[in-house]
């Protein structure tokens, strides 16, 4: 029987990473993780084995979806200030590119992409976390990759023009 608290504690760094990529804001991300941990601790008695990793990712993903539902009441057009780009070194600019590309994704596509590529979960695990068939996970992933590829290709074109 796995030790519950140490298992949860061991997941905190990964949850923080996933939350940061999902929300792009360090404070909101850590609040999501905090909310996830509190709920996990409260549900310790209800957890009868199974995969703690998937369970925690599920809680966090659902909490973020709830959070975004309130945001969805108003049109969310994220506008990145073009001035920030001036003088950015290579890695910073690349980091911003991928971050900006993530913004353009629909929530489910973003979380599918991050869970598979950043967190290294299997298609089956992500299907359980998102509560959909594996085929749906794969199509979300495909669309996410397609959008991001276009977005990153577009960035490269822009940089070329600036020069």
């Amino acid at each position, binding site marked *: 029987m796995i030790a519950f608290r140490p298992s949860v504690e061991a997941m905190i760094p990964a949850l923080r990473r996933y939350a940061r*990529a999902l929300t792009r*804001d360090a404070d909101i991300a850590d609040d999501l993780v905090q909310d996830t941990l509190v709920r996990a601790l409260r549900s310790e008695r209800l957890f009868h084995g199974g995969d703690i990793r998937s369970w925690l990712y599920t809680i966090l993903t659902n909490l973020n979806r709830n959070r975004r539902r309130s945001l969805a009441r108003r049109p969310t057009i994220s506008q990145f200030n073009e001035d920030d780009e001036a003088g950015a070194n290579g890695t910073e600019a690349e980091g911003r590119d991928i971050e900006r590309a993530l913004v353009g994704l629909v929530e489910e596509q973003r979380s599918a992409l991050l869970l598979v590529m950043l967190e290294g979960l299997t298609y089956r695990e992500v299907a359980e976390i998102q509560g959909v068939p594996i085929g749906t996970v794969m199509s979300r992933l495909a669309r996410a990759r397609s959008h991001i590829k276009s977005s990153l290709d577009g960035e490269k074109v822009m940089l070329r023009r600036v020069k």
Partner: protein
Amino acid sequence: MTEPNMPVTEDELHALVDNELPADRRAAVENWIETHPEDAARVAAWRTIGDSLHARYDAVADEAIPPSLELDRLASRPRSWMIGVAAAVLLAFAAGGAIGWLAHDASAAAVATAADPVTSMREEALAAHRLYIGEVRHPIEVRAEENHLLPWLSRRIGMTLRAPDLTKFDLKLLGGRLLPCVDGPAALLMYENEKGERVTLYATQLKAPRTSFRYQEADKFGAIFWVADNYGWVVSGPAGDKPRLKGIAMAAIEQGERR
């Protein structure tokens, strides 16, 4: 033996990147991209996405865990969690990033209204309702037939709890359980009708001023809630039937007052 030239599907290209290909297909797919440069370029581009994600975000997983996320602290002091969250929400509000998040919406969890005990209680009650009504074998901990149900819950929440008779609403008491809440434990009583639809009554100590009946819907659920004499109450049930929930709430109050 797999045909090396069998057409490779789009799904398989993705699966190659994610190590999700069955062993017998992997060689075929790798062969395919060697002879199909456009597909090879897409696979490479997708791999680059992974590299970019790791380059940008792996550092977060290497950071020291902030004090706000220490488990011992979170387990023992739920209140300080809410204060920390309120501060963070204000920070996000000031940055203009999360204004919508502060809008009243029960489905956005207790975070958005962390400083308000009544809302926290309502959301705890709704979370408990949502969680336990779905249980087939263990919806309640102590059954209605057991004599110690009400004395036990009453002792724990610090007031004489009466389970109202809701037969005129076609509801039968199943039993109850004890739960943690903001200012102390909470009692949850669960009722059920013949169709298996469930309603819960939630009662807990609450340091908050008296309120009249308030109603809130979240997802498929509705809740009538109020505060009286430093106790908070929530009647939860299916959404879209406020009058019925209000009737149940009135019955709970009337029968509670009879001594």
